[in-house]
Each structure stands twice: as structure tokens, then as C-alpha cells.
């Protein structure tokens, strides 16, 4: 089974579980605060996924160390490549 099929199965399972509880077809009586908290759950999970992604990006941005020598070496490579191409006739 492909990864996509696995993800879709998991999503379908969770989605049907949520629908069964939240839309209360056959008169399932959950306590009222629980139902109120359950109903926006998909949106809540999406928003928390977004928050987590934002935090991960921010953290990696803050902790990624500068590499001075690698930057200098890269600029050197660029200059050499430019000179080489100019030699071969590319403007």
C-alpha cells in the first residue's frame, strides 16, 4: 500500500470517528461541553499544525549557525566560474 493510501485511510478513519461523535446520529448523548469542544476539532488540529510548522521554521532559523568560511569559499567559486565563462566567450 502506498504512503498516500495509508494517509488517506488514517484520515478517513479519524474523520468518520469525529463525524460519528460530533453529528450524533442515533441519539448519542454526550455531555454538552464535550460536544461543544468536539465540533471544531478538525479546524483546531489544522491550526495547531500550522502553529507547530511556524514554530519549527522559526526555531531552525534562529539556531542555524552562520558558516563564514563556507560563504567566502562560495563567493570565490562564483568569481572563478564567472572568469572561466568569460574566457569561453559567454558575456
Amino acid at each position, binding site marked *: 500500500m502506498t504512503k498516500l493510501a495509508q494517509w488517506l485511510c488514517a484520515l478517513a478513519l479519524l474523520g468518520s470517528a469525529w463525524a460519528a461523535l460530533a453529528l450524533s446520529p442515533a441519539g448519542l448523548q454526550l455531555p454538552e461541553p464535550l460536544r461543544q469542544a468536539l465540533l*471544531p476539532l478538525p479546524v*483546531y488540529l*489544522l*491550526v495547531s499544525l500550522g502553529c507547530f510548522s511556524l514554530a519549527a521554521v*522559526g*526555531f*531552525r532559523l*534562529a539556531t542555524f549557525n552562520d558558516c563564514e568560511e563556507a560563504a567566502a569559499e562560495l563567493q570565490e567559486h562564483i568569481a572563478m566560474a564567472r572568469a572561466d565563462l568569460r574566457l569561453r566567450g559567454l558575456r
Partner: protein
Amino acid sequence: QATATDRAVGFGLVAFSLVLFVYYTLWIIVLPFIDSDHSIHHYFLPREYAVIIPVVAGLLLLLFIGVFIMVVMWKSRKPARKSD
């Protein structure tokens, strides 16, 4: 060591997403269990907005991405080939 601006922006993002997550969690999950005459409810909008605001924001994001792709594709179209 990352540059000072990088670190400031990065940790700022972490703090912002943390605040957002805590506020949203309180709003959606904790508030239904608190009596409706408690004063904490003053700090939160009516519950419908807890769904409307993220959905609208998501749609705006999709719109922005779509427009961006359109602009980039428009700019990169090549003129008709001239014969050599």
C-alpha cells in the same frame, strides 16, 4: 552563531506561535468547560469566530499563493520563437 536579526525573528516566530496555540487551545477546548458567567469569557470572541477566522485566513492564503503563481508564470512566458 546565527545573526542577531535571524535569532530575533526566529525566536519571535516561536513565541508568536506559542501564544497563538495557547490562546486557541483555551478558546476551543477549555472554555466550554467553564461556566458562562466567569469573567474569563470577556477575553474571547464568540465561539463562531474560532472557526470562521482560521477558515477565512486559510482561503486568503490560498488566494495569495494562487496569485503569486499566476504572476510568476506570466512573467516567465517566452515571446514567440523567431526563426534563426
